[in-house]
């Protein structure tokens, strides 16, 4: 081993480097026991399934879907914010960021690797929650079908079984779950943006929480204000700016529509998905520009 010029040819962009950072980030987050969230989700779903059994069949499924999809939305959001908020501050505090960026790793690749690590974690989390949700739905459907066979008169049985199947699992849930994932990715991208300039993970978490609330209430607030007589032009512009900066998170997930069994039209799904993905890219892009000029 003697000192000679570097043997490797530097690549301006390397998917292998990004993959190394992403897989390490995923491992780091899993090691932080973030999957305890999933246990809580499982517990809530089982309890709801148990307590809803006294309701009518279609109400049972509606409550179960409502709580489970709502739970998925809240838990993936919490996971996205809490996990993302600590990543950069922890790497800076432990000085691992210095050892990584002192290697031939562009800052863009570092940030992208971190973001992909979070997206992988969210994907695994929502997949596990979906599997659990579908399993409970299937179990409740089997129980309801058995009860219907035992209690329904033969001439009404076919109609009753069809009604139960229609209220249980249907393919409308898949785009709904995809949109919940997109919302969590958007919240992760925004949290990452804040953490590129914030001095602490607590500040990042608080700002992300506030933005989440704004994202949910701003359409209502805007509508109420614009309906009022003589709205101020300045406030109108401000509301428009907020609407541009923070998307309507209610519209993004459409959970309410999906729960009551409404199908999401493909064109609308694609439109929402593209809009959400654009926000993810813009948030990440702004985050990168801040991180690029950051003094470490």
């Amino acid at each position, binding site marked *: 081993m003697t000192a000679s010029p570097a043997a490797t040819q530097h690549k301006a962009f390397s998917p292998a480097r990004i993959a*190394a*950072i992403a897989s390490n980030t995923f491992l780091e987050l899993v090691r932080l026991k973030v999957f305890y969230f999933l246990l809580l989700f499982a517990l809530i779903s089982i309890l709801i399934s148990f307590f809803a059994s006294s309701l009518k069949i279609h109400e049972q499924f509606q409550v179960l879907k409502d709580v489970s999809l709502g739970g998925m939305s809240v838990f993936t959001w919490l996971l996205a914010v809490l996990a993302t908020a600590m990543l950069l501050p922890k790497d800076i505090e432990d000085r691992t960021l*210095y050892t990584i*960026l002192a*290697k031939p790793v562009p800052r863009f690749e570092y940030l992208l690797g971190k973001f992909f690590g979070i997206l992988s974690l969210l994907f695994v989390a929502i997949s596990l929650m979906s599997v659990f949700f579908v399993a409970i739905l299937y179990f409740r459907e089997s129980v309801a079908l058995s009860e219907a066979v035992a209690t329904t008169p033969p001439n009404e049985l076919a109609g009753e079984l069809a009604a139960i199947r229609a209220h249980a699992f249907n393919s409308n849930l898949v785009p709904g779950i995809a949109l919940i994932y997109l919302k969590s990715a958007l919240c992760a991208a925004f949290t990452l943006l804040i953490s590129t300039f914030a001095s602490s993970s607590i500040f990042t978490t608080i700002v992300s929480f506030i933005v989440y609330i704004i994202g949910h209430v701003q359409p209502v607030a805007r509508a109420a204000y614009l309906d009022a007589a003589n709205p101020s032009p300045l406030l109108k512009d401000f509301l428009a700016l907020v609407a541009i900066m923070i998307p309507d998170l209610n519209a993004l997930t459409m959970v309410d529509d999906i729960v009551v069994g409404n199908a999401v039209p493909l064109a609308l799904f694609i439109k929402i998905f593209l809009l959400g993905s654009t926000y993810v890219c813009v948030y990440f892009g702004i985050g990168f520009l801040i991180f690029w000029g950051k*003094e*470490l």
Partner: protein
Amino acid sequence: MSTPAISIQNLTKVYPIPFKKEKVTAVKDLSLTVEPGQVYGLLGPNGSGKSTTMKIVLGLVSPTSGRTEIFGRDSDTVESREDVGFLPENPYFYKYLTGEETLHFYGKLCGLSRSKIRERSKELLKLVGLENAADRRLGGYSKGMLQRIGLAQAMIQEPRLLVLDEPTAGVDPAGSREIRDLILDFKHRGITVLLCSHLLEQVQEICDRVGILDHGVLIREGKLTDLISIESQTEIILENAPPALLAEIRSLVARSSAQVIEERKPQKTLERYFLDVTSPKKP
């Protein structure tokens, strides 16, 4: 003439203070050159600008003015880091990775092939004496072991330059000596080392040149032996000298224009004494 390992030209770094008009000058018009193969000690009290200089050399901080180069490549470029290994002060790394996994991770970041990573990891774990701890998670490593795995990760892509910030901070004397020996080993392999340390005795033992920073200004710079030798004095160390010889030397000195400043038994360092009494006895 070979390309310098590090070239710093008229470097200035000014940090603005948030919400105030004043600014802090961390480094002021610094120029220095580190030649390939040298061990260069950057010294200075806390807040003297050592860390800022190091971070600018590594491209972690942008200079306000001036230029730094690593083997002729601008420090601002990512490519310049192909030739650098860095060990920060008190590094923690990822606690859930084993020693071997840590080296694999950093090897991937440097774009090494899998076979090269395996080969280098094995070689470096042996070099830093962590072969038996390769499968242990870093969470269970001692301070000295963390510093040694830190040195190994810094060396993974066979860089020509090592930048070490307080490499022995918080390490016990035996561990400190092991790290010092490793740095000397790197030096013998022709690797250039930029070392920041408060342990002046250690710097004196291993550095060829030193630069002393104070309030961001380079106040002294040069070959270590030139800087610290007292030109007007001479030291002669004798072994088993009989009293008659010593008396003759004293009388010779008395007859000349020279004078004896001090006459004493040479002493071993406290570190050497500590290592002698604490190291395991050979049977």
